[in-house]
């Protein structure tokens, strides 16, 4: 190997001299290769290579010649596009109204807009059926309509918008919240009216945020599995569900893999645009001093119009979740509305194992995922080593890869030696660890970028090696990122479905799978009871963590991290 300079050689030699660091990097690379790259590769190879090891495109031609499958592809893109647009729009209205007007109940709106994040993503679908379906509370119960078209495009889109608009709100809240009101003052001062100030200043400045949000929602919607499984119906096929049915229903692994590849492409394209193109176009208007200015972005009628829109959406969101709670306590939704605890008895009868399994899996995968996220963030921000960019890309990749693809990849990759894991606890835990690690990495990277590197350098000069610097200095400093990663990974592990549905077995089952199968067989009240228990456990976890953090860990460290 020819080294460009002595310096490069020295760097590599130093890496060799630090076995802990070197080993960590190698292990992480190996793990990313095995648990993220290899399964995706298996999906490709399964779809492209036939039983005899010959290159063969028949899985694709077969899928493409089937009108139904073709329709699935276009439907997926259509729903994803619509969900991205409407989810963004509602998120924008919320973020704008909360940041730019002096409406009452801001705290309430903020909570409602963030809350759905901790709920299982397909609860929206369940609830929409209960409200608008055949026995729907609103359609059948109030209006007496029996054939409201809830199955298909509009129902699915509604469910997805409800469950994904919080993602849009959080991003756009950050974008609009950091646009200084003095910019509007300046626009007014230069003779603009309110509408012109919005159109010429606020809107252009939030374009990168809007684009980024829409791409993220697009990816989420494409990857969504629970909602379409419940709502898409046979008349409105979508890719993620078709891939699943192809494998579990038709035992056609190759066909399923081919559909998964179709699903993968738009997601990856959107991810790359989001990360490497839109992600770089940000307007930064941080001025150090907080600027206070009287809010006067909109006039009174517009303000109350925005307020009403937010209220409407909030009411709808709350109705969705209230329906689930109510549904858990009635005998048979839409037919016999007597209150009962019967459903919960049923859940504990049938589903106790699934509840236990879910908790075991979540509690094992969550800390590993969060810690791994911090280690990778530390390496990415603070260390120079060959392949750093590659590590970043692969570790964030699992965010972009739809769960269905990963699920199919896992069953293909880990059903033979040397990685025989099918049916074990390990396959579920590993899947969750690597699927939910990107959020930990991103929050770790964001926080670490604000920590003065001199703090860690000081530790080195005082004799600490890499491991000691990480455990004694870095980790305590990025503890807030660690805990937010912990919460996120826990919520996701508890509510996971798309990849997990391929990996559950008789021995290891999940509550989410139970909810889907209950609602599939029409036992909506039982599905609701499962959901209520799931939500209760998530809330309890977050609550306990909050209390624990208040008493135990001082987070004040983050306020005095030197000048970054």
């Amino acid at each position, binding site marked *: 190997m020819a080294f460009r*300079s*002595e*310096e490069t050689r*020295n*760097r590599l*030699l*130093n890496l060799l*001299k*630090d076995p802990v660091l070197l080993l960590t990097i190698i292990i992480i690379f190996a793990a990313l290769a095995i648990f993220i790259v290899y399964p995706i590769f298996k999906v490709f190879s399964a779809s492209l290579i036939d039983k005899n090891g010959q290159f063969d495109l028949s899985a694709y031609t077969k899928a493409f010649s089937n009108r139904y499958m073709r329709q699935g592809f276009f439907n997926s893109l259509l729903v994803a596009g619509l969900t991205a647009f409407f989810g963004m729009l509602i998120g924008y209205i919320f973020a704008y109204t909360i940041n730019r007007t002096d409406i009452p109940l801001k705290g309430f709106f903020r909570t409602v807009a963030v809350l759905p994040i901790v709920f299982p993503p397909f609860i929206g679908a369940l609830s929409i059926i209960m409200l608008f379906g055949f026995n729907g509370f609103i359609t059948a119960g109030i209006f007496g309509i029996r054939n409201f078209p809830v199955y298909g495009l509009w129902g699915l889109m509604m469910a997805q918008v409800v469950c994904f608009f919080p993602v849009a709100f959080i991003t756009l809240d950050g974008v609009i919240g950091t646009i200084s009101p003095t910019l509007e003052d300046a626009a007014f001062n230069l003779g603009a009216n309110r509408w012109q100030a919005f159109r010429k200043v606020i809107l252009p400045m939030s374009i990168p945020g809007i684009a980024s949000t829409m791409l993220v929602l697009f990816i989420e919607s494409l990857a969504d599995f629970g909602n379409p499984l419940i709502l898409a119906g046979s008349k409105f096929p979508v890719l993620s569900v078709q891939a699943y049915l192809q494998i579990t229903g038709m035992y056609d692994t190759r066909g399923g893999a081919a559909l998964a590849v179709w699903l993968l492409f738009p997601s990856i394209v959107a991810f790359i645009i989001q990360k490497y193109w839109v992600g770089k176009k940000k307007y930064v208007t941080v001025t150090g001093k907080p600027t206070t200015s009287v809010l006067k972005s909109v006039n009174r009628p517009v303000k109350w119009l925005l307020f009403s829109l937010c209220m409407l959406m909030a009411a709808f969101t709350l109705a969705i979740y209230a329906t689930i709670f109510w549904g858990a306590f009635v005998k048979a939704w839409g037919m016999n509305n007597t209150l009962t605890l019967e459903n919960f008895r049923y859940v504990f009868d049938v589903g106790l194992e699934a509840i236990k399994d879910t908790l075991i899996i979540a509690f094992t995968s969550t800390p590993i995922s969060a810690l791994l996220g911090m280690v990778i963030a530390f390496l990415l921000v603070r260390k120079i080593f060959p392949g750093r960019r590659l590590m970043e890309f692969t570790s964030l990749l699992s965010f972009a890869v739809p769960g269905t693809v990963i699920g199919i990849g896992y069953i293909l990759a880990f059903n033979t030696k040397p990685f025989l894991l099918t049916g074990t606890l390990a396959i579920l835990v590993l899947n969750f660890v690597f699927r939910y690690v990107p959020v930990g990495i991103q929050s770790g990277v964001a926080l670490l970028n604000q920590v*003065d590197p*001199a*703090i860690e*350098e*000081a*530790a*080195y*000069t*005082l*004799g*600490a*090696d890499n491991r*000691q610097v990480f455990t*004694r*200095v870095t980790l*305590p*400093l990025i*503890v807030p990122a660690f805990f937010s990663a912990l919460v996120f990974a826990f919520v996701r592990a508890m509510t996971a479905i798309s990849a997990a549905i391929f990996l559950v077995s008789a021995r290891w089952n999940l509550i989410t799978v139970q909810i889907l199968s209950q609602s599939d067989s029409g036992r909506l009240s039982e599905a609701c009871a499962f959901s209520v228990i799931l939500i209760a456990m998530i809330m309890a976890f977050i609550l306990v963590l909050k209390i624990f953090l208040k008493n135990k860990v*001082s987070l*004040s*460290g*983050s*306020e*005095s*991290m*030197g*000048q970054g």
Partner: protein
Amino acid sequence: MSLILKNVRKVFTSYSVETVAVDNFDQVIEKGQLVTLLGPSGCGKTTTLRIIAGFEIPTSGRVLLEERDVTNLPPNKRNISMVFQSYALFPHLTVEENIAFGLKLKRLDRSEMRRKIVEMTDLVGLKGLEKRRPDQLSGGQQQRVALARSLVMEPSVLLFDEPLSNLDAKLRETMRLEIRRIQQEVNITSVYVTHDQVEAMSISDVIVVMNQGKVMQIGSPFDIYARPENSFVADFIGRVNFIDGTVESVDGDTVVVSAGATGNKIIGKRGTELVPGKPARVVLRPESLSDRKEERINSLSGKVLKYVFLGSNVEYELELSDGRKINAVTYNPVERKLPVVGRETELYFSRESAWVIRV
């Protein structure tokens, strides 16, 4: 010989553009010395310091610490401590825990650790603040913690990276004296980076003036000020007048320079190699100019353009007959009367204060 830098060179490459940050830095630093690296921002002083600390690996050259080659040794194995510009205290630890951080890594026994921490808090004046967290301390106190944390390790060399630049002017002066006192008390070899010349003058045994990666001059504060080897050093430290001319004759360390259009002959002291007939530059500090002849053998005359009365002294600008401008300072103006704008004035200076260098 505590610390030796041998031909240290550092080149940064970004997008295949090479920038020489440090160019052939060669210096021996003796035990117990405080050496300051002084220069404008981007001159390579901080890079040099980071090479000594081990955060940067030099492109070529060696770093020797107590006769051991440490060029490729990671920072934690060097026994070199550093005091950072941003203090870099561990925000999640108390004062005491910050100081104990390195000792714990060394697995020192408890009573020994206790003793050292008490000794150190005494030395730097932090008694009574042991249980506080960094965010409950003032800037000056934080800097004391940073100093204590580094000193307690009894390092072979202590590094300072602009340690006072985040303090206000008054505190900076006190801390400067504090650092010098403590450094001399424990007799620790130190390398100190600053861009503030007053700071450098007041605490250093040796000053290394750097510019664009190159060492411009190494010397005591007096030498750097009174005997600059080049225009950069003369200009960077303090205020200065340059009078350019031609070397007329050289006799030992006495030089005669004919000062261009004015036709004046200046008898000065030779600062560098000089050849008769070649251009030379007379370095003249404003305070060397006096309105009294006394023993002074050189003189300049010109018109007073303007003056600024500053209480203890008066600064004024003189225009020579060829249009060149000269700055002068007189002290004790109460005794001496103020200059009059527009009046022809004659100023005198000695041979010793006319320092002649090559251009």
